């Protein structure tokens, strides 16, 4: 320790002229501030800005030069024997030199920036969101990283050893390994884990270089080639261990099973579908998101890209038999179809840029896409586009689309001033504006099975109305109150509308023509979602508050009573909650997560439970 300090003091003394240069750079910003034309209107800004630039540039240049020479030059010039012929341990030589170099870099940075900070401290906020301390720490961390890397490159290059080819190969291998570590985390949208991985590898690299420096002098001493060899062995050995540890961790993270999903769980399922798509954050795995395509019948799960759950999402066909999902390929997505009984998905041949929406026909044989303002209808069996037209985009917020029939596609364009309705007939090959619903704000709706009628709710307008789904014209007002919680068409064309607190929660059932058939009061809450119906009963998901546990409630429509209820877990968006149009198949089982890692299929008729996964 004492000898390390003695060496540090000597190195520092030798390079004291650098400190003099730093002092000169500390004065320069003050000179600039008073020079007309440079100083500008705010001299303090000039001082602050120029001193930050000088300090960063000076420290960076010093880091590169010091790093490349503080050991490497002594080795290549044959001067390392000056130390090694003295009674000092090689570790003392290394840490003495290292300490001096780091102190010099940090010291020069502080020398340049401190006077400006004192003189123009308040100006820092005018050009940076970072505080001076944060900016300084960041600059110094990057500078020290630069210094350590320069040492490695300096040692390697100055040894003039062919081993540098192996180093290059090792560096490339490390880069490839890091890419393979980052990719699955990036696919899992795990930004925090990627950042932690970066910090871990950066620390490992710093340890490898600092430790490697001590090791190279201990093993190589005055011989530059042996120094190179020792540093290489330590550096790449340490990085290999670090990458192995990181790889093991990443492997564990991405091995999450459906039962590991604990938070932010999103599920998607359609009545009659053999598939359940489940996504969420996995237990003890930071912000890693996983998504699975689960066979509801046997509980088998295959991992899918959780990113697919994003803007484009997955699309169940209305008959429930197929699931269309994007498969990410660089910056585009290949649409594939998962079908009942097929072990592998079928290629549609359709490729979309990421995040662009697509809509499937009831049987999945036709897919509509909207890419950069072009609406296209694609025939899956023929693997060809049938028609492509421009769609209006002025003031557009987003699109919803539905196949009225295999040949007719209905497009709902949400905009600031309401909803515009268009139809595209593949036989006519022209986009036709069929109607609109004007409103100062958002318009939400639910469609009947035939896409001929819609229940409409307008932002800032009380109640819901029955409208023509093609023209948007109001047919009649269904409920006039303010407290409509949710609404949906049933599979047979009847309408179900829930009104809730502060009055008692009531399920109104209307005929397809809009006549009120019955009111069914029940113990509801602020949140009520539609799960589905089987013709006789409708299943709702009820929660007193957003964060409260959900209860599944099966209400018999004929008798007007709650037949069964089932407590489900938290953090679920119930299957069917986002569907605007009822499915073809009746609801036979409700799939939910019980919050304890189980995915359960609940029969609302019998009340029987079946463990899909995690049982």
């Amino acid at each position, binding site marked *: 320790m004492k*000898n390390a300090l003695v060496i540090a003091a*000597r190195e520092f003394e030798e390079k004291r002229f650098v400190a003099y240069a730093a002092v000169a750079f500390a004065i320069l910003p003050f000179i600039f501030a008073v020079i007309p034309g440079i100083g500008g209107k705010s001299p303090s800004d000039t001082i602050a800005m120029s001193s930050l630039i000088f300090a960063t540039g000076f420290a960076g240049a010093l880091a590169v030069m010091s790093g490349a020479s503080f050991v490497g030059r002594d080795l290549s010039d*044959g*001067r390392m*024997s000056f130390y090694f012929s003295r009674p000092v*341990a*090689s570790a003392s030589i290394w840490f003495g030199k290292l300490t001096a170099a780091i102190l010099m870099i940090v010291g020069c940075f502080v020398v340049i920036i401190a006077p400006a900070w004192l003189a123009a401290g308040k100006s820092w906020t005018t050009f940076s969101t970072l505080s001076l301390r944060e900016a300084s720490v960041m600059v110094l961390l990057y500078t020290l990283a630069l210094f350590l890397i320069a040492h490695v490159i300096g040692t390697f290059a100055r040894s003039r050893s062919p081993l540098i080819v192996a180093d290059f190969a090792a560096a490339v291998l490390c880069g490839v390994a890091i890419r393979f570590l980052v990719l699955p985390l990036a696919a899992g949208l795990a930004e925090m884990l990627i950042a932690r991985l970066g910090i871990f590898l950066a620390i490992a690299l710093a340890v490898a270089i600092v430790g490697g420096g001590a090791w190279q002098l201990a093993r190589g001493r*005055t011989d530059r080639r*042996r120094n190179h060899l020792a540093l290489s062995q330590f550096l790449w050995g340490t990085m290999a261990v670090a990458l192995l540890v990181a790889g093991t961790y990443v492997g564990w993270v991405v091995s999450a099973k459906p039962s590991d999903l604990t938070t932010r769980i999103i599920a998607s399922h359609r009545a009659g579908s053999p598939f359940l798509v489940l996504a969420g954050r996995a237990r003890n795995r930071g912000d890693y998101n996983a998504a699975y395509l689960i066979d509801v019948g046997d509980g088998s799960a295959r991992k899918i890209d959780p990113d697919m759950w994003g803007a484009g999402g997955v699309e169940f066909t209305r008959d429930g038999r197929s699931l269309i999902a994007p498969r990410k390929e660089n910056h585009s997505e290949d649409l594939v179809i998962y079908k009942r009984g097929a072990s592998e998905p079928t290629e549609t041949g359709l490729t979309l840029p990421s995040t662009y929406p697509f809509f499937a026909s009831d049987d999945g044989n036709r897919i509509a896409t909207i890419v950069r303002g072009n609406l296209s209808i694609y025939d899956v069996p023929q693997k060809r586009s049938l028609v492509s037209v421009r769609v209006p985009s002025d003031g557009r917020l987003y699109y919803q689309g539905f196949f009225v029939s295999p040949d007719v596609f209905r497009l709902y364009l949400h905009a600031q001033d309401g909803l515009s309705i268009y139809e595209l007939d593949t036989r006519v090959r022209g986009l036709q504006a069929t109607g609109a619903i004007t409103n100062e704000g958002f318009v939400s709706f639910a469609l009947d099975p035939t896409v001929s009628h819609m229940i409409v709710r307008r932002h800032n307008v009380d109640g819901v109305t029955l409208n023509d789904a093609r023209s948007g014209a109001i047919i009649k007002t269904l409920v006039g109150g303010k407290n409509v919680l949710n609404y949906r068409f049933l599979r047979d064309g009847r309408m179900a509308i829930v009104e809730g607190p502060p009055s008692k929660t009531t399920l109104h059932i209307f005929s397809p023509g809009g006549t009120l058939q019955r009111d069914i009061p029940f113990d509801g809450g602020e949140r009520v979602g539609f799960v589905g119906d089987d013709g006789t009963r409708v299943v709702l998901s009820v929660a007193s508050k957003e964060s409260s546990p959900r209860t599944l409630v099966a209400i018999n429509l004929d008798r007007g009573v709650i037949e069964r209820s089932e407590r489900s877990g938290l953090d679920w968006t119930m299957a069917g909650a986002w569907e605007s149009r009822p499915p073809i198949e009746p609801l036979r089982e409700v799939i939910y997560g019980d919050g304890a890692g189980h995915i359960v299929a609940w029969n609302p008729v019998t009340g029987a439970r079946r463990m899909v996964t995690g049982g």
Partner: protein
Amino acid sequence: MTDNAIRISDLTVRYGRTTAVDHVALTVDRGGVYALVGRNGAGKSSLVRCLLGQQKPQHGETMLFGEDSWSRRAALMQRVGVVTEEADAPPEMSVASIARFCSRLYDKWDQASVEARLKTFGVPLASRFGSLSKGQKKQVSLALALAVSPELLVLDDPTLGLDVVARKSLFEEVIGDLADRGTTVFITTHDLAGVETFADRVGMMENGRLVLDEEVDALKSRFRRIRFAAQPVAIDTAALRPTVMRSWGGGAEAIVSNYDDLAFERMRSASNIGAAEVEAMSLEEIFIAIAGGKS
């Protein structure tokens, strides 16, 4: 306590496919003065680096005072003064700063001796090391090496760059004085004339191998130059082994490496070779004879 200040056994150093030191073994007793000679590239400096624990050999070991010089280098250097072949002190530092730096690293340090020696050598303390001549740098290195009163002084070609006066001073006053005081000296040099007067033992390296390792007196006693007045000359090689044979118009000259008065007289009378003159040889002449004879 071992009697050897230096013991090198089976030392092998390779640089890639080139063997710089090839299975060398030698010992130097405490208080002895060992001169290692050899042509440039013979492997002397590699051997010295291994000896000082600055380089790990591929094979063999180097011991100083009975301890491994690679693993115990830092501790051993308290007892060893070193003058390297090339001046290795930082060129930007003043001589005084270098001395001050070194003084903090050693358990014992005689600053007065450093200043006195540098004064003798005529090297100003305030001078930048990089501004000194090659000879002055060597003198500074020597002054620093001697300031610790070393038990072993290792000098790697110390006369390189020294003028005649400085060289004479180094050998006669400094090293001679150290030898008299019982300090072990290990010196590599080309200046055989300089070491001849005080070296106890001499080693000669050639192509990495130690081709000669012998007491100086014994070496000098077995080498002779014999000049014959007439030729042809037939030498009984079983009795006297000629290392070099040269002839000229009227006579011939042989350098023998196993000279013995009795054998010579016996050969002369038996071979009837006539007049012959026997001359003792200097170390330098012997070195040239050996090196030349092998080249």
